[in-house]
């Protein structure tokens, strides 16, 4: 080998080495780039929602997408994991006695509200007292209540204008709430409840508020219509974002939140949360407009419902620059039959309607296949889901049931009125159902009514709702504590009459007349009086594990046999974000595991950041 060829060989060798080194360098670089980049801090996230805010008092029932704004400020005692298990969040532990009639909750240490107040046993008690209608813990409810709101007398427990609302009905099973020490609170129940944690989670709605929100100084009103309550305009919680008084626009269509610098949670690397500096939530009713704003980049993240915005969700899924995160299909709207009057006081009439609904066709036509037809009143992920006794589509059977129905009614036709929301897509849903029923000879008149009016009539304390059937979305999730309020004919398992008896201890148990249904059936949408169902249901609530699941299924099978309601398709919600938005649903829960990502109340934005 001469010098020149030797030189060329050396040169080639050198080049090969250089290429190898270069390649390895690139590989190292790529490997580094492939690891999760550090989240970007700062910036504003523009979020659009479909609902208007109502307010932040316990009685202010914010709808699904508006709840997404509230959940960034307030947090719940428990959280739900992706597998449906409810785990501690603002409490560090919860334990019960053997029959679940007594529970002890320990508040999480090191948590403060954004106004500097401590999160402890006192704060938990005042929140509970507000939920049950009494305003202050450790004292005479009437006395404390009189200080805060004299107009609430003489029924302080039931002053629903700003405190409690429907919540006292949910808490009618609560016997006493006692402070054990600075961090521990004991809940004593009238009837054992193995699912108290889930009830306290309240499907993500039971936010803990700062005690300052309940002080007389911040609640100067003396009438039901007073509007000076702090909670009407400001929320103070322990969440990753905080809200200044005035953070909500006068028309409640825009809410601006800023980072809570004292937020207690940290990310996986122990760094402070949240990453974002500011959130701006804006109400945008039209789904197509929300998709357009996302595509144009004027909105970063938006909320959608599959019930009437399936096409918008499907369109967003097709846009490459957008990412749609869907909730599980575990929201179960139903057609509730009002059973205390004709025609649905007849089982055969309820059976006829249930058998006449072609759920698969409905799901295809009204959600373009996004949503799945139901085979139980509760979805597959729910503890009580069972296909037993569920009446599926069968036109021949429907005709048979219908023949019996009209015979029992003494009429020639089964005809009924049901309200549907005024939104065009909701009306189309109603029309599709009416068309299906008409195919077997049932006449359903679809009334165009605002949801607010429907709610008024459905939850009227009078026995008559004014409708013969109601399309309503209240059942949801894998558990049944929240659902229980709407399924059972009594909220605490006892049959008593009168508002006063509801929170009376032990009025319900001792002097109750088992056949009287007073205010207890406020939430009983179908107005059923099925005590066999109630017995099974409350027996299930007092159990746990496999025994509870089996008992729930038994109860649901009973419900389905009696057809107190019938569903069509499970509903999913979606959160759609632009490609600049990162970290959606990536933050782990404090108790470990992955949280339920998207839900009816959107997503948590604690671990979300925005790239340039």
């Amino acid at each position, binding site marked *: 080998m001469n010098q020149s060829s030797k030189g060329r060989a050396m040169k080639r060798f050198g080049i090969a080495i250089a290429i190898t080194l270069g390649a390895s360098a690139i590989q190292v670089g790529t490997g580094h780039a492939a690891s999760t980049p550090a989240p970007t801090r700062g910036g504003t996230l523009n979020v*659009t929602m479909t609902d*208007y805010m*109502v*307010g932040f008092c316990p009685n*202010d029932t914010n709808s699904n997408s508006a709840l997404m704004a509230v959940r960034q400020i307030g947090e719940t005692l428990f959280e739900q994991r992706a597998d449906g298990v409810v785990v501690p969040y603002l409490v560090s532990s919860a334990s019960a006695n053997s029959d679940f009639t007594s529970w002890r909750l320990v508040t999480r240490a090191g948590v403060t509200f954004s106004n500097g107040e401590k999160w402890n046993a006192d704060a938990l008690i005042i929140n509970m007292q507000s939920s049950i209608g009494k305003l202050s813990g450790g004292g005479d409810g009437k006395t404390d209540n009189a200080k805060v709101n004299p*107009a609430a007398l003489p*029924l302080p427990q*039931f002053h*629903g*204008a700003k405190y409690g*609302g*429907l919540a*006292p*009905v949910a808490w009618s099973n609560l016997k006493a709430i006692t402070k054990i020490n600075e961090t521990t609170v004991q809940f004593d129940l009238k009837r054992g409840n193995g699912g108290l944690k889930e009830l306290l989670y309240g499907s993500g709605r039971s936010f803990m508020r700062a005690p300052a929100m309940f002080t007389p100084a911040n609640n100067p009103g003396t*009438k*039901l*219509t007073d*509007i000076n*309550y702090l909670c*009407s*305009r400001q929320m103070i919680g322990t969440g990753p974002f905080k809200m200044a008084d005035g953070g909500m*626009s*006068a*028309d*409640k*269509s*825009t809410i601006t939140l800023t980072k809570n610098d004292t937020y207690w949670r940290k990310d996986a690397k122990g760094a402070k949360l949240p990453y974002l500096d500011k959130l701006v939530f*804006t*109400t*945008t*009713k*039209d789904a*197509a*407009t929300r998709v*357009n*704003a996302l*595509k*144009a980049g*004027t909105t970063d993240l938006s909320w959608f419902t599959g019930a009437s915005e399936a096409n918008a969700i499907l369109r967003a899924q097709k846009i490459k620059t957008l990412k749609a995160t869907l909730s599980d299909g575990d929201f179960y709207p139903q057609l509730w039959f009002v059973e205390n009057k004709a025609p649905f006081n007849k089982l055969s009439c309820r059976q006829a309607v249930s058998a006449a609904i072609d759920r698969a066709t409905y799901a295809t036509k009204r959600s373009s296949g996004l949503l799945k037809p139901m085979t139980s009143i509760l979805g597959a992920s729910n503890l009580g889901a069972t296909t037993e006794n569920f009446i599926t589509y069968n036109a021949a059977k429907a005709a048979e049931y219908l023949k019996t129905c009209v015979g029992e009614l003494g009429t020639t036709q089964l005809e009924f009125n049901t309200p549907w929301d*005024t939104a065009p897509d909701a009306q189309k849903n109603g029309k599709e159902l009416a068309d299906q029923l008409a195919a077997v000879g049932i006449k359903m008149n679809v009334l165009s009514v*605002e*949801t*607010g*009016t429907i*709610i*008024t*009539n459905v*939850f*009227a*304390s009078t026995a008559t709702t*004014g409708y013969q059937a109601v399309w309503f979305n209240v059942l949801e999730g894998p558990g049944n504590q929240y659902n229980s309020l709407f399924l059972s004919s009594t909220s605490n398992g006892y049959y008593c009459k009168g*508002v006063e008896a509801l929170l009376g201890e032990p009025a319900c148990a001792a002097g109750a007349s088992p056949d009287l249904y007073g*205010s207890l059936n*406020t939430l009983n949408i179908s107005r059923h009086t099925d005590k066999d169902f109630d017995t099974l249901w409350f027996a299930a609530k007092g159990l746990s594990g496999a025994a509870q699941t089996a008992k729930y299924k038994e109860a649901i099978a009973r419900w389905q046999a009696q057809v107190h309601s019938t569903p069509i398709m499970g509903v999913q919600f979606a959160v759609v974000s632009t490609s600049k938005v990162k970290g959606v649903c990536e933050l782990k829960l404090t108790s470990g595991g992955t949280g339920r990502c998207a839900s009816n109340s959107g997503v948590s934005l604690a671990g979300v950041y925005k790239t340039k």
Partner: protein
Amino acid sequence: MKKAQSLLIRFSQVALVLLGATFLVSILIRQLPGDVSLLINPVASEAERASLRHELGLDRNYFSAYWMWLSRMFQGDFGFFIFGGKVLPVLKTAIPPTLQLIFYTQIVALTVAVPLGVTSAYKQGTRFDRFTSTTLFSLSSIPNFGIGLILSLIIGVKIGILPPSGYKPISEGLLDHFRLMVLPVLTLAIAPISTYTRLLRAEMIGALREDYVLLALSKGLSDRRILLRHVLRPSCTTLMTSAALSMGGLIGGALVIEIIFVIPGMGTQLAKAIGMREFLAIQTYVAFIALFYITFNSIIDFLIGVVDPRTRNRRA
């Protein structure tokens, strides 16, 4: 003296229309089914509900309840929302976007319609005239919410030269304000452009056949001068009346357009209040909308008098 009398009559008419409109609305709202007290407190006892109805004036007769609302209005109390908050702060923020939207729409509509109408009349029967008429007729037959969605999608999303939705007040930047207003104004302006153009064309064609035009022609005046000074001016009175009458339509149109383009104006607030059965707020909003409508009409009446001395003399 006569002018003062005329003004007095005018103001009396305005007041009467306002009172009539708001009173009718107050009666209609009270006919809505359901019990508002139950919306506020679903688990209230009968006594609590009665107390609540009393506070809201729902237990009063139509006249008494209306008087309660009216007297509060005169005291500067524009009412409250059943679900919390006062109406006045919302009105303060909602009026400017709606007025801007309507004002810009009228300017755009008139700016486009006048030259189009004049040219179409001048070139009646030509290809330009037929094309203009057909195009405008086709566009005006599409509902404005449809046009809004199409414009938002094509210009705002596909081409991306303008934001597809949103609103910013002038105080937050003039450029951003106008960029956001272009699409809603265009959407809302299409129908009046069509109406004004066709109306002006028809009026001008009629005027072109008048004897004084022939006289002007015989005097050797230029076409341009005849069109603009002798034909356009008398034809404008109908256009101006139409512009005033279209204010009602624009307010109604703005209701939908504001929702599509996410403009927090009166339309958005009215739709929200109707949906939530905020009857006190609805009554106040209607009073203000009626006030706008009447004010616009009065201004146009005055302007017609300026433009066409014949009507001015008739009024005097």
